[in-house]
């Protein structure tokens, strides 16, 4: 699928001790090359119908996912369900504020997710810092570190708002405009520089795959 000339320069993985570098992938992510339109449209339809959320509550907003899962709001009827591991997930819900310590896990989990993958960021904190605008340890906008497909405003957003956000995500996916994963691959150097600017003790591979 990918020509040899497209292969990017291997990643340095300087955060790892030299004897561990060989254990990890040194390839940067690459952009997804779409199939022809009919096939891609079909795939996008299928992708939109089964959104599997990574069960990782990154902030206080994760509390809103519980009523979504249970009978009152019942997100399963929309084809949305949580999964226990990044490897099985296609949607990452950033649940509000992200401290630097959590951001490290967010980056790692996001990179471990298999494509196609999408990010829903909920709450004011992911957009402009919210009430943590002057915190020494909380980032003020998540889209500097991982790409975001849909924002849901509010502090907290109600479960109805989350459902509306997921419906919006479905529309975006079906229209073929959920390009966050490709943006991450395209601007990988920029994202990585931003991440390393705030995560001072970078002791993991440059791309956690």
């Amino acid at each position: 699928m990918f020509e040899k000339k497209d292969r990017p320069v291997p990643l340095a993985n300087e955060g790892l001790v030299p004897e561990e570098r060989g254990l990890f992938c040194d390839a940067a992510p690459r952009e997804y090359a779409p199939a022809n339109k009919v096939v891609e449209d079909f795939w996008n339809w299928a992708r939109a119908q089964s959104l599997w959320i990574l069960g990782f509550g990154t902030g206080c907003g994760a509390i809103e996912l519980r009523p979504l899962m249970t009978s009152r709001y019942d997100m399963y009827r929309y084809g949305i369900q949580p999964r226990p591991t990044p490897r099985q997930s296609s949607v990452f819900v950033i649940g509000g504020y992200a401290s630097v310590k959590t951001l490290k896990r967010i980056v790692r989990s996001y990179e471990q997710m298999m494509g196609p993958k999408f990010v829903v960021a909920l709450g004011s904190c992911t957009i402009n810092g919210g009430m943590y605008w002057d915190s020494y340890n909380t980032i003020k906008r998540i889209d500097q570190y991982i790409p975001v497909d849909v924002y849901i405003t509010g502090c907290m957003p109600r479960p109805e708002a989350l459902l509306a956000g997921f419906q919006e995500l479905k529309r975006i996916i079906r229209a073929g405009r959920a390009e966050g994963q490709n943006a991450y691959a395209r601007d990988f150097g920029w994202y990585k520089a931003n991440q390393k600017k705030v995560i001072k003790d970078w002791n993991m591979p440059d791309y956690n795959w």
Partner: protein
Amino acid sequence: MNQLQGKLAERYGARDWTDRRADLSSVTVDVLRIRDVLYWLRDEAGYAHLSFATAVDNIERGVFTLTYSLRNHGTGHWLLVHCDVDRGHPVVDSVHLLWGQAWTYQREMKEWFGIDFPGSPRVDEEFVLEGWEGPPMMRRDFDSLAYSDATYAERPGRTTVDPAMHMKERLYPEADA
């Protein structure tokens, strides 16, 4: 409690005894005697439980005020033991041998205020922060906003309104100022 107050004053020069509630008092001692005082309170006076230990940055007086919260389960009485330590040289005796859990509080105070407890287990390791390179962030001369502005990217367009003015203008325009 007057008997205890007298004994503490006599043995350790404790001062500023204050009854804050029927079951809660506070007292201040010299930082050099803190371990002796706590040892005596634990083994002789029945205050066997250390429920909490923390620090306050009294920058106006140039000291950190440490507080140890003790409880006598026999009488149900709480005692807060305060001591001041110089901000310029914040080193305090560790009490982890009196209460095993104390090293957690001491690690916290080391990371957040820079107060050292020599000999306390893992006191030099990171506690809640990871890769923190700035000064201890709970010191009051640490400017959190300036650090945040310099470190984290901001989305332009954020505005702030005064809640009282906003409510008056939007919800109750007829109300008096």
